[in-house]
């Protein structure tokens, strides 16, 4: 490529590429590799898209049912509804079809109730057969891990083969320029990569129809194309540099092993050691200790609420709690829920912050492995990374706080204090201390959506930069390998 641009001749490039394809069709190994690559991407796309629709339907249905059940509850004491609680389900984003990301490892159901923040439960992975070691059956896995290996198997000999059969020097002697040769070989491999990406691009139509923006989808696809191009540059560089086919293949296989299998796990392991995160349980103890200072919201006589009572009596100019124009028990519940929630949220934010720090640390390994970079880009643009899970936790917490407080408000304003205090005297008294089921209309329909496409695109800029660096690095490397062409 040191020759000037005029000497790049598309016709010759095309001939070189066509020749390479001819060779592949005659080689059993290459044909098998190509077929495996195409079947794998095609079948995973079909299976994953089908599964995603089923999942979306299932969880959407469960969500609707859960909302209906809540609204249909009979007349009750409002605080009973606070503990009856509500279930929400996480529906995957459109691009989750091709890259489900952390979805299988996070719970997809969360129980929302008063005074507590529960964790998301029932991660799919917990029901796995314990057979998958490397990854799940997703187009993302196939393209991130298997596709580079197939490209290696097909392309390790693009230049080293010519050298071993001594055709390389003939080509050089006939005046074939370095740039033409290299670009021709690259085009041949690029065509293979595009073929493997084709099912993904086609599934993009389905993804778009599900409401994904063109911006994120393009960024997603560009990321994959860039990634496979990096591999093609690596393959051609090493094939050019290696003295023999054998050395070329061993080096490439080893490179693949390090970049695709080893690095991602080294990244998580180092992140785990370097950035320790306390679990939820430890935080729960700290929360419990803080909450004990607050007073028990179930007990309006708790010392912590005496001052609140005095203030309220003064404000309304009455002497007895019974004379207040509101239900003091409900008022206490309202106040204490707000305080508890602010403490719970502080710890929850803390925990999410710790998790993010771990993930950020692991993602820095994208500078050391393009696979790590692409995986991050893929998850972030698809909206299936840790950030999106945190978003789910925050949104559900919002939902929880709103409906609990609306119930507490009904408790304060619609239930008489004396009836409330007598609720346990007898069963008949318990019947009186209830409010109408109309008040249960406090939950809005919940449908989880990942963050806006622009936000996701911005998040993906760092891994994109990592990929561009890899691309540039090997592009330059290849440029400087001309001396090996002889």
């Amino acid at each position, binding site marked *: 490529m040191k020759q000037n641009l005029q000497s790049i001749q598309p016709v010759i490039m095309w001939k070189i590429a066509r020749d390479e394809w001819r060779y592949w069709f005659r080689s059993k190994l290459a044909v098998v590799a190509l077929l495996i690559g195409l079947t794998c991407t095609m079948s995973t796309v079909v299976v994953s898209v089908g599964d995603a629709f089923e999942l979306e339907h299932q969880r959407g249905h469960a969500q609707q049912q859960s909302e209906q059940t809540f609204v249909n509850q009979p007349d009750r004491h409002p605080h009973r509804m606070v503990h009856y609680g509500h279930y929400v389900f996480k529906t995957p984003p459109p691009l989750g079809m091709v890259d489900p990301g952390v979805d*299988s490892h996070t719970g997809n159901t969360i129980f929302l109730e008063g005074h507590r923040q529960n*964790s998301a439960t029932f991660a799919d992975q917990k029901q*796995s*057969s314990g057979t998958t070691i490397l990854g799940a059956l997703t187009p993302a896995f196939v393209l991130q891990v298997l596709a580079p290996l197939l490209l290696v198997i097909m392309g*390790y000999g693009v230049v080293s083969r010519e050298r071993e059969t001594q055709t390389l020097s003939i080509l050089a002697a006939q005046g074939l320029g370095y740039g033409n040769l290299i670009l021709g070989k690259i085009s041949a491999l690029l065509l293979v990569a595009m073929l493997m990406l084709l099912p993904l691009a086609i599934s993009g139509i389905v993804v778009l129809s599900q409401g994904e923006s063109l911006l994120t989808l393009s960024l997603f696809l560009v990321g994959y194309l860039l990634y496979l191009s990096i591999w093609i540059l690596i393959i051609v560089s090493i094939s050019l540099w290696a003295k023999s086919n054998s050395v070329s293949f*061993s080096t490439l296989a080893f490179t693949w092993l390090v970049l695709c299998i080893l690095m991602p796990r080294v990244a998580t*392991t180092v992140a785990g050691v370097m950035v320790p995160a306390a679990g939820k349980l430890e935080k729960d103890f700290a929360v419990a200790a803080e909450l004990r200072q607050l007073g028990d919201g179930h007990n309006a006589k708790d010392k912590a609420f005496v001052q609140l009572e005095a203030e309220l009596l003064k404000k309304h100019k009455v002497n007895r709690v019974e004379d207040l124009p509101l239900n003091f028990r409900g008022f206490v519940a309202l106040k204490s829920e707000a305080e508890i929630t602010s403490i719970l949220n502080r710890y929850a934010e803390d925990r999410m912050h710790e998790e993010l720090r771990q993930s950020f640390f692991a993602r820095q390994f994208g500078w050391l492995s393009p696979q790590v970079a692409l995986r991050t880009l893929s998850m972030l643009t698809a909206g299936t990374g840790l950030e999106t*899970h945190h978003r789910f936790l925050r949104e559900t917490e919002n939902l929880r706080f709103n409906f609990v407080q609306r119930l507490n408000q009904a408790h304060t304003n619609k239930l008489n204090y004396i009836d409330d205090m007598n609720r346990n005297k007898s069963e008949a008294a318990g019947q009186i201390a209830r409010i109408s089921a109309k008040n249960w209309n406090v939950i809005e329909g919940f449908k989880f959506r990942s963050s806006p496409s622009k936000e996701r695109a911005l998040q993906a800029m760092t891994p994109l930069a990592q990929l561009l660096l890899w691309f540039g690095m090997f592009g330059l490397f290849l440029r400087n390998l001309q001396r090996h062409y002889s």
Partner: protein
Amino acid sequence: MMRHLVREWRFLLGQNNVVILLCLCCALSSFAIYSGHQEIVAQHFTIERLQLAQQQDQQDILAKHKTPGSLAYYQFHLTYQTPSHLSFAALGDRDLYPWKHRIRMLALEGQIYESDVANPELAYIGKFDFSFLISVLAPLFVILMLHDIIANERNKGRYELLVVTASGSVVLWGYKTLVRFLALSLSMLAPFYIGSALNDVPLYDVLHVSILVLAYLAFWAALTLWFGRQSIFAPRIAATLIGFWVAVTCVIPITGNLLIEKNIEVPKGSEILLLQREIVNQAWDIPAETSLTEFVKTHPEYRVYTEMSEGFHWKWYYAFQQLGDQAVAHLAFDYRNAILTKFDLGGYIAMFAPPVLMRRQLSRMAQTDVISALRYEQSIRDFHQALRLYYYPYLFELHLFDESTLADMPQYSDFARL
């Protein structure tokens, strides 16, 4: 024999790429053992901190709540599964299944599925531990190291000469292979031995792991050699072997997993929770005696104590908590059973996928797999049941509850199992 081995060892030292590969294996194994050890130390520390926090929490609760009803309501009990000696080498699924949990006397089905687990993004990618190194990476190292032993000689034109002059094929290829194989195995096992010493692993287990590892690597070595004789073209040998590796680490396990997923129906976990919630909450809307009558069917000894003078009594409250659990017991059982069935079926797939088999063997030995996770869950269930049996006589006011009776409260440590 020693003479041959020493000679081959010297040859080996002269080959840069082989030496580099050996150093890399040793470095990777050391890293795996070190990080695994760190992780387990951290887990032990976490348990210690939790125990300390639990003690503090207990004191506060006991000072505040004197009646059995409210004590049982507010007192959380800490449960945990201590990592085994060997778990540093196979961290297993402890980042997926919880190994620490707090429960109280309320309906257990509403609490037991809560899980405090590690960062899901890290868990999704997976950790690098000794079992991963051995089951997934080591075969590739064996292939890279042994595939061209014969082909190389052929390519360099020495093959015929060597075959004619050497006294036998064992002398020719056997010692060379043996030296490389032993060097590779030991480079990975040596750090494991250090880790074992640090973690007080019983000698028997160390031997067991060593034999497993050697047998597994020998399988890959034999495969590589057998294949290496079929062709003179080294890249073709390696590519085919790597293809086989991809088949047994990815294709077969993933396809098998898919088959299991599609054929084994797992009851939806959320259904357990939803039903349990209905039953528990319904109790407030139906006459208390209905729940209590239902309750004494399983605890006839309280038959004569079901009278309730007020609208609320703790005995009624805990009785319907138990009814909530009872109502979903079959679902919860099916749920666990389905997980176990899937895991067992996975065992059949592992027969065709040696890396999976190896990983399952190691995590079984280290007690970090699904079976151990389910055993831990069972220990929580047993403990919860014991708590109920402890509290009921006091809740139904057969006996008087005071400070002295606290000493008889069940402790989780008596129920813990690996």
